């Protein structure tokens, strides 16, 4: 791995954690904690993406210990983003947003068993409340847990993919060309 890609990994992990300030400013119910993982994958491939995801979870765990069990979700996100990049799905918002919605379903399906077994579906206040809503709607416990995770992840991952697409298109071509996957991800190579 080149030094440039090695520098990209902690930078992308820090992006995932620092974006909370922007999210707080606009008061949207989003996490964007996989933005760095998707971005690193789209720029440098699955190895960089998985390393970014694991590093994001490790650093986030020092701030909030409940993040570590979800490290597997970061790995799934990196692999999915790699497939999306290979397919050139970051070439426009019209392709990126549906891909992000698909990732939302996958991420919810992955995080539900972890949330159910480890946390009793109480990972955050929002997820606990939507899980309670699912229970009130008559869903079984696991179904209600999936409902809570789905509501949280569906929009979040679509916004993440849209944001990464915006970044990839805003990057000067010369800068993008320094990363092995960037041009292919936006359908320019």
């Amino acid at each position, binding site marked *: *791995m080149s030094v440039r890609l090695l520098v990209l990994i902690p930078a992308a992990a820090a992006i995932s954690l*620092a974006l909370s300030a922007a999210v707080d400013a606009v*008061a*949207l119910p989003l996490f964007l904690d996989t933005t760095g993982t998707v971005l690193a994958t789209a720029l440098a491939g699955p190895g960089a993406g998985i390393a970014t995801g694991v590093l994001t979870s490790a650093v986030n765990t*020092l*701030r909030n*210990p409940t993040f570590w069990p979800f490290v597997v979700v970061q790995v799934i996100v990196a692999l999915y983003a790699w497939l999306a990049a290979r397919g050139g799905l970051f070439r426009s918002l019209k392709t990126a947003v549906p891909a992000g919605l698909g990732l939302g379903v996958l991420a919810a399906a992955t995080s539900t068993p972890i949330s159910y077994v480890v946390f*009793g579906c*109480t990972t955050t206040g929002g997820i606990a409340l939507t899980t*309670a809503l699912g229970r009130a709607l008559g869903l079984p416990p696991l179904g209600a847990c999936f409902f809570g995770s789905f509501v949280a992840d569906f929009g979040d991952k679509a916004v993440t993919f849209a944001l990464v697409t915006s970044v990839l298109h805003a990057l000067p071509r010369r800068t993008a060309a320094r990363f092995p996957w960037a041009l292919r991800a936006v359908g320019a190579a």
Partner: protein
Amino acid sequence: MTGGRLHPFTLLAIAGTLPALAWILPAPAGGAVTTAVALVLTLTPGASPGLAGTGSSPGWRPGLVVLRTAVLTAAPFWLFLLLLHDVPSTIAIGLRLTTMIASVVWVGALLPPGRLVEAMVAAGWGVTAAYLFAAALSAVPLLKARAQRIVDAQRCRGLSPRGGLGRRLRALRALALPLVLSVLHEVDERALALETRGFVPGARRTPLAPPRDATAERVGRWLLLVGCAAALAWRLAWRG
């Protein structure tokens, strides 16, 4: 010996063992014991509240600040658990989560990241792993401060983060894009700086101040591992 003088790997082993035992041992007694141990550990001499991200708390003893952080972090989970589960399940899951939270808050308060990196390097880890961890930890507060400056600057230019969903999403893009692009532009500068200092991925580095790893601590770590395995075997046999 105070917790702050233990080897970083020993601290991590303790912080990993307690939650593992909380899940392995029968509820609620097992969870109650591990929770009690973890909460007592937060009062260990040497705990520094600043490293736990707890900020300054004038008039509070550092140990009490760490305990308070652990309790305040765990409290919402108890509320949500009560909302979703019956009382026995709430107690069983709540004690496990409290053990996990208190253990990590404790180790976060006792273990400066730099000391962990030194221990990793001394243990033979390549410079790559140490760099990744140290760089991410040091970059997060810098980028958060930069994100806040971007928020302030965009507000000065008239950006309103209020209104409907579309308007908020456009505002989010205007806030996030400069942050991410600025970080990506810096990647080359940082890579160049590392290369000019002879940084080669995978190379081994000499630690400046390696933490002392006593034989007793190494044995203790193995005992913790064996203890977890024995508890798991006993639990499986007992269930069977």
